[in-house]
């Protein structure tokens, strides 16, 4: 489930609305080992002779990405936006115990976003909580470990999804 993490980047360029410009822009990407996942050529949105082109590219390292941006700028290509795309994983957990639901909701684990929470109290007063969270894929293992520690602190059982 915790797949090999690939570094994915989103780059939006402003290319002159002239033939051959896209090919010119792709050269630095290929030279730096980038693998193009998608290209959206937004020809319906030209502005003052420029066409926005959005690319999603896989690179082996942040350095390759940085070098590509420098190379693009050196050949005079305008970069509107460039950033890393962080893939996120949705995970479901169940917590059982004398859990303070409010504390669970307020659990501040860095980069973990609580999407959904539902709780049920048993006749003996124990609370069962279903927690759905979203985490960056490359941080999942660390976040699950922190969640386990938080559950342990409350004397609760944490049931994680299979495969993580």
């Amino acid at each position, binding site marked *: 489930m915790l797949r090999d993490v690939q570094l994915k980047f989103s780059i939006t360029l402003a290319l002159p609305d002239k033939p051959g410009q896209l090919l010119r822009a792709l050269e630095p990407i290929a030279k730096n080992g980038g693998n193009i996942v998608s290209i959206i050529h937004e020809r319906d949105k030209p502005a003052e002779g420029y066409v926005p082109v959005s690319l999603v590219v896989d690179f082996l390292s942040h350095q390759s990405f940085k070098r590509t941006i420098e190379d693009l700028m050196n050949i005079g290509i305008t970069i509107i936006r460039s950033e890393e795309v962080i893939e996120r994983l949705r995970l*479901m957990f169940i917590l*059982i115990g004398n859990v303070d639901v409010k504390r669970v909701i307020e659990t501040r684990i860095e980069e973990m976003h609580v999407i959904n929470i539902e709780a049920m109290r*048993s006749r003996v007063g124990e609370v*069962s909580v*279903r927690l759905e969270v979203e985490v960056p894929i490359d941080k999942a293992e660390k976040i699950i470990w922190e969640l386990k520690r938080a559950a342990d602190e409350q004397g609760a*059982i944490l*049931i*994680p999804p*299979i*495969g993580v």
Partner: protein
Amino acid sequence: MRLAIIGFGFLGRNLLRVIWEKISFIRKFDRDFLVVGVANSRGYIYDRDGLNLENLMAFNDLLRYPGFRAGSAVDLIRGDLCDVIVEATPTNIRDGEPGLTHIKLALSRGIHVVTPNKGPLVLAFRELMYLAEKNDCDLLYEGTVAGAIPIFSLVKECLQGDKIIRLSGILNGTTNYILSRMFFEEIGFDIALKEAQEKGIAERDPSYDVDGIDAACKVVILANTLVGRDVKINDVERIGIRGITQEAISLAKKANYAIKLIGTIDKRLEVAPKLVPINHPLCVHGTLNAIHVETDLAREITLVGYGAGKETVSAMLNDIITILKKRTWRSSVINSAKLA
């Protein structure tokens, strides 16, 4: 080959019945195949010309069988009266006895061993493997993990070039039965456990199953056999199912998940309740077991089957036939070489 069965309990008795029913088929692999001895905790019976299995089936108590000799299975093994033993005494994970003594003695005397008994393998895996190799014997134990599911045969024979990334599975039928009843009938753990005990699925002292000890034993045997680890039961992180509430199962069910007790072997060794999507191949119910194998080449393979009860005899008989094929083929090759 001359076979002796050590342990005349549920599995020993069922194996004997199956051998009796399939004797002509078994003799296709070894025309000289005989069951020469059967032992229980009080002594044994032995006939060098082969026991009359039909007669033997009529005896519930071995002590009443004509010619019963008081003593122990050790006498039968030490007397070099057999070539293969089936060690089917009850599992004991504290000291592995009496199975550990029987298996060690047999292997050290060059006698092949087939066993569904987890105790000796959990406690002395490396030592037993070393003894088997040193004495050129087979030690086969397919029945120790997930009963009739041929997990060892599958991985050893059919995935020889694959690297195992992860093994995960439902390795205990009792806990799966309890969790399945909680899932479908919306009853609490205590009621589901009581029901399992009334049906004979759970023991009066259910700790061995519900606290995940049985599943942890299987994790140890799987890890030592299939991923080359050298681990003991204390190396397995273990959480049982006693704390699972009916409310937790309902919350999981609403989101299309079931809660299952899963044994996992990857970089960690673990037995713990996990959320399993209801469309996942491991999401099987009742007393069924299931094992999910993740490898580099085949990617994912799942086996589902019965993990305990008389179905285990399938694994035991397959192990016996494996030895007959391997050893009688070898002796026939040696004989023809001698003739030439």
